[in-house]
């Protein structure tokens, strides 16, 4: 059973089709790099997969169930453009809150563990509004991974990360993939994403222009896909 099954999905904003007849599957344990120019529909698609938005037409199955089902949301993790943590809470309080919301048995312990793993334990009681950008990003990553999601949905995760944070995220993603979890990430950072990716999909003006395995050629020449399947 595929981790994600997308069948005939359309999304209209009024009469404007942001997504047009998108269909593809993502197998468990794979890492899909979702490519496309700005405005192609990547974020729209990810939001629908995350259950934040409804498709106008079509079927989406996540881990065998509807995207909005509670069991699905428990097993899925979303990292969007915003960091999704509260400025007025401390790093620890933020992670504890999300651990609680995701129904983990010992929220405090999980929070502490992830503060260690993202090197934030020295600032655990500092308020997020005083954090540097790098620290905020690391906290966002901690929030994303702490409930051991089976599916990770990441919207341009490498943008605005410094090189240490990029390495940390790549390590975490590799560990998750080795553990059989599934990752879908949209990206402009072709090199970092393609290193991890097992599969590739290219979205062009709302349509699926390409869907296939990530080949060594793509890794050597990241813009190959755009030149062959994208727009000039």
């Amino acid at each position: 059973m595929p981790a994600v099954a997308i069948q005939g999905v359309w999304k209209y904003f009024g009469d404007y089709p942001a997504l047009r007849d998108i269909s593809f599957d993502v197998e468990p344990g794979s890492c899909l790099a979702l490519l496309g120019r700005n405005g192609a529909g990547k974020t729209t698609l990810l939001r629908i997969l995350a259950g934040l938005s409804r498709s106008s037409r079509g079927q989406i199955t996540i881990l065998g169930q509807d995207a909005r089902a509670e069991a699905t949301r428990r097993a899925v993790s979303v990292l969007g453009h915003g960091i999704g943590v509260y400025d007025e809470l401390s790093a620890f309080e933020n992670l504890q809150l999300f651990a609680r919301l995701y129904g983990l048995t010992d929220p405090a312990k999980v929070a502490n563990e992830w503060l260690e793993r993202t090197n934030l334990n020295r600032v655990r009681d500092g308020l997020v509004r005083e954090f540097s950008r790098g620290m905020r990003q690391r906290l966002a990553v901690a929030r994303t991974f702490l409930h051991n999601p089976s599916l990770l949905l990441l919207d341009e995760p490498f943008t605005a990360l410094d090189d240490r944070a990029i390495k940390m995220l790549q390590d975490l993603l590799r560990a998750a993939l080795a553990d059989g979890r599934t990752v879908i990430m949209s990206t402009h950072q072709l090199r970092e994403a393609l290193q991890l990716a097992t599969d590739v999909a290219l979205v062009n003006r709302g349509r699926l222009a390409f869907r296939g395995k990530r080949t060594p050629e793509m890794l050597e020449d990241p813009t190959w896909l755009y030149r062959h399947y994208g727009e000039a």
Partner: protein
Amino acid sequence: MKFLRQAWAVAAKDLRSEIRSKESINASVAFALVILLLFSFAFDPTSDQVREIAGGLLWLVFAFAGTLILNRSFARELVNDCLDALLASPVSGAQLFLGKTIANFVILMAVETLALPVFTVFYNVHWTQSIGLVFVVMLLGTWGLTVIGTLFSAMTVNLRLRELMLPMLVYPMMIPALMGAIQLSSVLVAGEPVGAENQIWFRLLVAFDVIFSLLALALVETVLVG
């Protein structure tokens, strides 16, 4: 029970946030004091006539001050895209709404409890005997205001002109609750007991609270996600 636990996690988060920043509470208390002051210019605060309208004045102050708090309720989740993080989590729309309503209720009750003695002193009102009943009316009325206000905060969160739209939508809808609270408060301010003919206002308040709480819980998921 899990429903309440999740709602409480959200409420605790909102309350902790508010206690640290105090932005809503400070603005709201200041606003309440300013309105109390402005009202004193509209009529002679020492006359007996004030006794008749004191109940109404009090609840107008609470309603206006409350809108400041309610406006921010869902809007503060837009920072850092936290609303998306919450909606993507296993928390349901109804749990999220209930948590926020509880937090807003506590904050607004705090503002009202601070404003009440000031009001009592400014307008020379005596109700120490019936202070318990006054508090009950405050609880019932404030819950009604909060439920409506939090729901509309969710509805207008992504709207243009949010700050203008929220009061416009909320005030007419709150009128039954305000009416009940004002009637009861006026009776209590006059130092009279709440007789049989005024029981009806208690029933109205309770009915309003129950109906709109249920309606809001049922509709909020549609409002937030679609």
